[in-house]
């Protein structure tokens, strides 16, 4: 491609060819233009909203769309450069290779600092454009302010990318081939992990923009909550999927089946997830009962604050972790400044204006509102635990001159109680009536489930070997939460015949189904985590070809080990047959790969997935005295962890598709006043 640009321009169609070799520069230019558009979109509508000038406010919509189109073009150009392996681009040279599979050439676009920041901005402008296109139902002033705030985030990050992380830098002499993408990242799970996480992170920018716009406006009402909830829901869903993908990737790729490490980078995505979950629940209270307004605004600000903090942690590498692929303090400082300006600015505005957000709803001590306050306290404090654990090594070193680590044992001990508490109150709280509830009435349909939960936990305790309480507690909580969600659905069917009940349940609003499905997912995940942690079996040994040994109820045989050549790696592959009694279940082929260009080995575990258990085998190095090191794991209910997460995301999607929230739907009809039963 580079060469073609040097060719003398004597052929017909010269103009087109000229444009073709200028493509990279056009992409770069589009990005600079987008910065200018964002500047305009930040200032003009805000002034317009202040002066009540319709023409100035009207600038926001086309500006948001233009900004998205410009960034989109720029992103497309960068993707094109990766797809065609244009090594005249420094970024492509550093992160790609001609032998790489096409899907990883494309995922290589965001498998590096500069490209991932461009993806971040692309998603930011995408959300802005969506809000502009489908925000017709919003009051004009609110929409203008929301888009202006959204644009200000765009200005900050476009400046960041243009001045410190420009993906469009050229090399004077393009090399023949690239240095390849980190082989760990050449994986389907990880290829789509960052886009989902970013959709989540950046989606929370919309909630932030709505919160700041509401603060400028000085009013928050049920309608505001109804507009902000879909954005939060969508962001939370994407975060859920992104986190689950990352965890699943770690499970099969890192070679011993760990699924969560409390690594700073994981925590960086987990904190916004927790806060977004709290925000989802508190926004319901604002929408239905016009209470908890200022708290909801604060959560919206904090959720995006944690997203920015996450971006800072990942991009600066200040908290060293397995994930720190970008170690550049200068960039870190800039993101920290952005974080300080946005969070500081929003919180100052909050301090000045929150007092004006008078809540209206009155509720008694025992009510859904109180239960949701408790839910919010547990979620917010658990996010705080993750936060303090994540930054403590930094704080201890700076202030107390102690070099220390905060690892999984701390988080397991300090974080788990909050999730246990949340699971315990969830079924009760979600059954309580709004405004004034009675514990007895809420608890009645749950009695049977409580008995079942305790009985199954006892059964699990009797069956398991050892006296660990973790597994049984997981069983009890899982049954309790899932049963609670089912009982909630069942109660909503009314008190008539079964057939009538089922029809009614089927016709419940999607939001109710979403709530049930998401809560069931939470129960499933809790059970899966407890089960795998308490009951997994591990076996490490040296095995010769033909050796057979048993782990739990399965036996394993190492049949063959051979060398093979992959597209951009060489691999040592083993055939291991898995038996249950005399029946052969399967042959698993664990691999050890070596990527010569990146000079990196990776482990490819072989996994037989099952509903009740995964069988997980890893092949290691040949031993001095012959044979190979082999690891075998039996991991009970592993898939339930991610299955539960997918259910949570599905619940979010169902809720999002509820009529009430559909973006751009006609003005919500007045809710019919419920006639009291008595």
């Amino acid at each position, binding site marked *: 491609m580079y060469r073609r640009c040097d060719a003398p321009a004597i052929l017909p169609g010269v103009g087109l060819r000229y444009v073709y070799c200028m493509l990279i520069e056009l992409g770069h230019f589009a990005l600079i233009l987008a910065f200018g558009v964002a500047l305009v979109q930040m200032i003009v509508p805000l002034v317009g909203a202040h002066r009540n000038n319709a023409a100035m406010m009207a600038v926001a919509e086309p500006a948001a769309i233009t900004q998205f189109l410009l960034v989109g073009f720029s992103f497309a150009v960068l993707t094109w450069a990766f797809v065609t392996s244009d090594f005249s681009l420094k970024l492509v040279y550093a992160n790609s290779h001609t032998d790489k599979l096409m899907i990883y050439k494309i995922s290589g676009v965001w498998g590096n600092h500069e490209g991932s920041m461009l993806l971040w901005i692309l998603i930011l402008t995408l959300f802005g454009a969506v809000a502009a296109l489908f925000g017709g139902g919003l009051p004009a002033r609110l929409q203008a302010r929301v888009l202006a705030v959204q644009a200000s985030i765009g200005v900050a990050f476009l400046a960041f990318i243009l001045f410190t992380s420009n993906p469009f830098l050229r090399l004077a002499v393009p090399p023949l081939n690239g240095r390849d993408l980190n082989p760990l990242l050449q994986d389907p799970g990880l290829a789509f992990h960052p886009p989902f996480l970013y959709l989540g992170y950046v989606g929370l920018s919309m909630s932030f923009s709505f919160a700041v716009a509401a603060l400028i406006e000085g009013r928050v009402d049920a309608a505001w909550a109804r507009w902000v909830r879909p954005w939060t829901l969508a962001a939370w869903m994407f975060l859920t999927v992104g986190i689950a993908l990352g965890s699943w990737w770690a499970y099969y790729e890192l070679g011993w089946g760990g699924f969560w490490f409390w690594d700073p980078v994981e925590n960086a995505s987990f904190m916004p997830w927790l806060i977004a979950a709290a925000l989802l629940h508190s926004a319901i209270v604002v929408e239905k009962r016009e209470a908890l307004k200022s708290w909801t605004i604060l959560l919206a600000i904090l959720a995006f604050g944690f997203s920015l903090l996450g971006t800072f942690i990942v991009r600066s590498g200040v908290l060293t972790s397995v994930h720190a692929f970008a170690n550049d303090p200068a960039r870190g400082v800039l993101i920290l400044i952005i974080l300080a300006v946005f969070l500081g600015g929003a919180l100052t505005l909050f301090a000045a204006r929150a007092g004006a957000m008078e809540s209206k*709803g009155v509720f008694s001590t025992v009510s859904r509102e109180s239960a949701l*306050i408790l839910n919010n306290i547990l979620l917010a404090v658990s996010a705080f635990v993750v936060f303090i654990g994540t930054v403590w090594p930094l704080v201890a070193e700076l202030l107390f001159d*102690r*070099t220390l680590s905060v*690892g999984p044992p701390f988080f397991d001990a300090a974080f788990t109680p909050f999730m246990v508490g949340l699971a315990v109150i969830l079924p009760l709280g979600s059954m309580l009536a709004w405004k004034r509830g009675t514990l007895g009435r809420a608890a009645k349909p749950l009695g049977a489930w409580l008995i079942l939960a305790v009985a199954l936990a006892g059964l699990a305790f009797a069956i398991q070997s050892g006296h660990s309480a973790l597994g049984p507690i997981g069983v009890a909580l899982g049954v309790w939460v899932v049963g609670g969600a089912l009982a909630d659905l069942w109660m909503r069917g009314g008190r008539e015949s079964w057939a009538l009940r089922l029809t009614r349940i089927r016709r419940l609003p999607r939001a109710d189904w979403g709530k049930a499905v998401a809560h069931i997912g939470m129960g499933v995940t809790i059970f899966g985590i407890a089960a795998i942690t308490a009951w997994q079996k591990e076996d490490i040994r040296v095995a010769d070809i033909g050796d057979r040994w048993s782990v739990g109820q399965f036996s394993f045989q190492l049949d063959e080990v051979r060398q093979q050549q992959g597209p951009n790696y060489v691999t040592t592959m083993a055939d291991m047959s898995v038996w249950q009694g005399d029946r052969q279940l399967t042959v698993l082929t664990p691999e050890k790969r070596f990527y010569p260009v990146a000079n990196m080995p990776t482990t490819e575990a072989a996994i037989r997935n099952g509903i009740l258990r995964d069988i997980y085998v890893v092949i290691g190095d040949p031993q001095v005295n012959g044979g190979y090191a082999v690891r075998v794991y039996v991991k009970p209910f592993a898939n339930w962890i991610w299955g539960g997460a997918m259910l949570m995301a599905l619940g979010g999607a169902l809720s999002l598709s509820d009529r009430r929230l559909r973006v751009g739907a006609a003005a919500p009809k007045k809710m019919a006043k419920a006639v009291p039963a008595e």
Partner: protein
Amino acid sequence: MRRLLIILLLVAAPVWAVEPGEMLDDPALEARAREISQGLRCPVCRNESIDESHATLSRELRIVLRERIVAGDTDAQAVDFMVARYGEYVLLRPDARGANLILWLAAPAMLVLSLGVGWATIRRRRTAPAALTDAEQAELDKILEA
């Protein structure tokens, strides 16, 4: 870039944490060793315990740890032995001494505080009159005057 590569290499080298040759014959002692080593950080890695790390140093530490256990150390003595040599940095579960009290007490304190605020909010909402706020009253007055 070179440093990054080396680090990545350390991180991504074949995942051979505990090798068959290192393991103790007595399953009870081996189980204790695994348990302890899961709480000790590999000093040259990023956020990995010596149990899951494949760095050479981790391997050596695992062997030393097992030697201590075979020699009759209690769990606490074995951990102290490591801390004496590599500092509290190797503890993945920081002790609750000195400034670390802040770390351990922050969450419970925050919980108590927010439960207090939450309770106060609930009480206030229970008694709050559903009347107009000052702002609304002012707005209403303005409308009525006009």
